[in-house]
């Protein structure tokens, strides 16, 4: 998931150390807090039960005062029901007479309670609280004019407090896990930027020097230990450079001034020998190289994607709180997702051009402006229109920022392995998606939807502060012209490519936005899950993608079986989404999400490689990046259609039906693609163009 790069050992040790130092005290504090919570909650619940009991006893005493015999009270079920309904921790309510006989009871079978009531002596204050089976029974005396008529019993769920604690425990563990991953990201960033990165540069310099190359030295960077070390090392290289120049100058002097031709020839020979063995900068001193690496952009990118992913699990729920006259509630919930995807699709080409002209750092910062503004608008929105404007702004910002990062990574990664560079990008996006999803759900449940968007804005600003420190890569490679509309049509004339995009790439995105982003949160909410739990359930999808992708990438490379994996992935995903048809409840949804995760995990990496195979000639002309950009653009059609299609289906089919319907579409597409994949022929997969393996 996280490419530790060359600093693996240092960072691993730091991580283990940080975990050892941080986790025990956190665990102790947390355990203490839980204990306090439990101790505080139990008397609080007792008090609440006693209050409820007194209220009920008061009403019953009123009836008794009016001369209604206790055993002939009417409508006690309707009397008890609303109290039980509005207090989830209550399990039953009962009324007993002075002998302890149960007159009325709601919520539990009288036979469970009767043995206890008949023997207990409620006159003793100590006996008014008792544990009966799995219940905690609080007895409130019922008195009229000093006469004890009986008791009102309030029964609480004995497991209520442990259940609540369990919920909190899960939340805290989630937060801890997310915090550790974020800490890992920060450590990775700090170590890479300040230690591992510069040291790698200097070791490269020495490696070059060993081969006689003294042309370049790294920029010393910060004025810390590492910086001083690099300066010292640079000084040594500079000293060699200086000595070389003095030696050459002396040789020149001898060559031009010596009377003995033999000596001049010897010197010239020696000089040639030296020039052959050692290479120095032409400019008169070693060139200082501001070398930047893909890893430098990882933390800003991570934070930015994290900010967007916070709202992933509850966006349709938040959207559903708005309304638009004449539009179905489902469509109102779907539109914010669809317009966000549309904004990304439309802004991406523009963002690409922008990056070419302004450089990654400035574009990153520029893109943050609409993104942050969008978060604030979304969080403050009072009507659907405001929400949509906010999402469009964030979508535009998202397109610009991610494009800036991609460009940074692809440029900085030249010289390194390109695959590693793209790994940094994909790794940051996937890690942020897992963390943001989990953390955002908890945030929304405890602080509200709107607060989560303000947290997004803060995260995005933090990403900006870090990005401001980036230096644009020194090696500005003239990027190949971004492919325009012409390229799009040229690509689509390649029937293999067209079939791939329409029947594999688009359905994948359709299922992603339609089911994971839209239907699953709404359906799970309808099934009674809280937001934080919904977010954790959605992790089934992201988690399986994250875990499967790297292994599948290797498998695809090793076997060359790419179209097959893509087709298999499509079939698994489509089939999985049909599961909710089999029965209601949460389990089929979990399985469907898992299948979709496996599906996308299987097909994501092979998809990229497959594009290169299918469009070998086009790649030569437009460039691999250009072709991939067209794929991204085209598959967004699926992203936009997903929630819209789902919203149209829900009123007709219900949530489960809509998931299955999207599954059926994905399945049908996958079958077509599988057939076509056979028709692709067993011809050689042209060019082992295996640079990118996210």
């Amino acid at each position: 998931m996280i490419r530790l790069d060359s600093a693996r050992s240092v960072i691993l040790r730091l991580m283990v150390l940080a975990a050892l130092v941080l986790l025990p005290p956190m665990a102790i504090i947390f355990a203490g807090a839980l204990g306090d919570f439990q101790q505080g909650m139990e008397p609080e619940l007792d008090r609440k039960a006693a209050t409820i009991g007194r209220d009920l006893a008061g009403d019953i005493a009123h009836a008794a005062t009016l001369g209604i015999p206790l055993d002939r009270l009417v409508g006690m079920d309707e009397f008890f029901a609303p109290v039980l309904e509005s207090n989830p921790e209550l399990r039953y309510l009962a009324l007993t007479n002075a002998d302890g006989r149960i007159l009325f009871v709601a919520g539990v079978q009288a036979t469970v309670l009767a043995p206890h009531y008949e023997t207990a002596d409620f006159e003793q204050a100590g006996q008014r609280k008792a544990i009966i089976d799995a219940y905690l029974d609080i007895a409130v005396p019922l008195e009229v004019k000093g006469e004890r008529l009986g008791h009102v019993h309030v029964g609480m769920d004995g497991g209520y407090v442990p259940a609540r604690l369990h919920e909190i425990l899960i939340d805290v563990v989630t937060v801890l896990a997310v915090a550790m991953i974020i800490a890992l990201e920060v450590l990775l960033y700090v170590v890479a930027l300040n230690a591992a990165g510069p040291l790698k540069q200097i070791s490269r310099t020495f490696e070059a020097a060993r081969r006689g190359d003294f042309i370049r030295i790294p920029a010393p960077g910060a004025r810390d230990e590492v910086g001083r070390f690099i300066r010292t090392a640079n000084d040594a290289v500079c000293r060699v450079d200086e000595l070389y120049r003095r030696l050459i100058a002396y040789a020149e002097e001898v060559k031009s001034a010596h009377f003995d031709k033999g000596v001049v020839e010897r010197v010239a020979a020696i000089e040639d020998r030296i020039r052959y063995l050692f290479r120095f900068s032409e400019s008169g001193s070693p060139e200082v190289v501001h070398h930047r690496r893909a890893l430098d952009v990882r933390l800003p990118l991570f934070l930015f994607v994290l900010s967007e992913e916070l709202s992933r699990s509850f966006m349709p729920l938040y959207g559903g709180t708005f309304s638009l006259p004449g539009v179905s509630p489902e469509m109102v919930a779907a539109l914010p997702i669809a317009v966000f995807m549309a904004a990304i699709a439309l802004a991406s080409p523009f963002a690409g051009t922008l990056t070419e002209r302004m450089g990654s750092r400035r574009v990153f910062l520029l893109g943050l402006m609409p993104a942050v503004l969008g978060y604030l608008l979304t969080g403050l929105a009072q009507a659907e229109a405001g929400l949509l404007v906010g999402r469009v702004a964030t979508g535009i910002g998202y397109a610009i920022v991610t494009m800036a990062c991609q460009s940074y990574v692809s440029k900085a990664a030249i010289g390194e392995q390109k695959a590693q560079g793209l790994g940094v990008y994909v790794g940051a996006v996937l890690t942020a998606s897992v963390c943001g999803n989990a953390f955002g759900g908890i945030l929304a449940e405890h602080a509200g939807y709107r607060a989560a968007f303000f947290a997004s804005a803060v995260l995005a600003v933090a990403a900006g502060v870090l990005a401001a420190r980036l230096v644009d890569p020194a090696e500005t490679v003239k990027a190949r012209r971004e492919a325009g509309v012409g390229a799009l049509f040229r690509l689509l004339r390649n029937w293999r490519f067209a079939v791939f995009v329409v029947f594999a790439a688009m359905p994948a995105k359709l299922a992603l936005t339609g089911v994971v982003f839209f239907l699953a949160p709404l359906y799970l909410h309808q099934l009674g899950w809280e937001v934080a739990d919904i977010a954790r359930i959605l992790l089934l999808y992201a988690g399986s993608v994250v875990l499967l992708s790297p292994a599948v990438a290797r498998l695809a490379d090793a076997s060359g079986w790419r179209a097959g994996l893509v087709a298999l992935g499509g079939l698994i995903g489509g089939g999985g989404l049909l599961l909710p048809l089999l029965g209601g409840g949460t389990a089929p949804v979990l399985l469907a999400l898992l299948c979709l995760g496996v599906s996308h995990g299987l097909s994501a990496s092979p998809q990229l490689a497959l594009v290169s195979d299918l469009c070998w000639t086009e790649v030569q002309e437009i460039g691999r990046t250009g072709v991939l950009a067209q794929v991204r653009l085209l598959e967004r059609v699926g992203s936009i259609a997903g929630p819209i299609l789902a919203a149209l289906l829900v009123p007709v089919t219900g949530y489960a039906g809509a998931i299955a319907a999207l599954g059926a579409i994905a399945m049908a597409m996958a079958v077509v693609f599988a057939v076509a994949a056979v028709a692709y022929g067993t011809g050689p997969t042209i060019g082992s163009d295996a640079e990118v393996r996210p």
Partner: protein
Amino acid sequence: MIRRLAGLVLLAALTLVPPAAAAEAPKPFRIYMALWRGWEEAAQGFKDYFANQNIPVELIVRNAAQDKSKLPEFVAEVKRLKPDLVFTWGTTVSQEMLGVIGKVDPARHITDIPAVFAIVSQPIEAGLVPSLASSGRNITGATYLASMETQVNLIQSWRRFRHLGMVYNPLEANSLVAIHELEALGRSVGFTLTALPADLADGKPVPASIAAKVAALKAAGVDILYIPPDTFLNVHRDLLTGAALEQRLPSYAAAENPVVTSKAMFGGIYRYYTVGQLTAYKAEQILVHGKAPSAVAIDPPRRLSIIVNMPVVRALEFYPPMKLLGLAEVVDPAGAK
């Protein structure tokens, strides 16, 4: 010149500002109250509303003392005094002073001054308004009878019943309307109605026949006796409710008196005081908020008062559900035991 102009502007501004908004020296609204039976609960509720809302009013109170001949004098006085609003109490006063639709004569009726009516049981049938949503005229008001559906729901919430009984005065239009409505409701909700008319002698209903009718109802297997708002039954309420108690037949009354001052078991009514307050609220919409009377709908108060006659309940041992008891006003002069 300029000063005089400024003065004019100021004067214009002052007249434009609604009186309630003018903070200093608010000019009270002048309201002409035409009453039928003297100062009672509805009039008091009307007056108290303005006091509670801090709306200054000057009330010109006239009592017809159930004498129809006084009403033309009232109309003449209204035309002379030109108050801001007219309040009419009861069907007769409202009909005589405001006129019934199709027979409104600006010379004999009040047309140019907004009016609110109270304690009119059936404004449409009385010819005052064509619909409750809007009078289409310069008047509005509050009704005081609960809809039959509300009443049936209330009785059902005490006990599900399948057979409703009713004794009525065949000469009273209100009762005939009630029978019609109950029969229609019975068909949709699922109960039968047995309505027996009191015997007539010399064109008048005979009080002595009531007890026998109640006994006949009981024999027919009636679950609950419905007592309509009927003047004859109101006068002879002790006969009627006493007979019901004797037959151990629970009774529900659509008016206050049979429950509060006699032996009906329970009733669902709008208190006159509440009706008076609602009428004042409608007056406020017109006077303070500048709404046209035709834009103010005619409706009963929101909250139905449920009155339970506890001694009767105890005698019948027909106890109300806890929920209903929590909402009800209990009449229990002696207390239990």
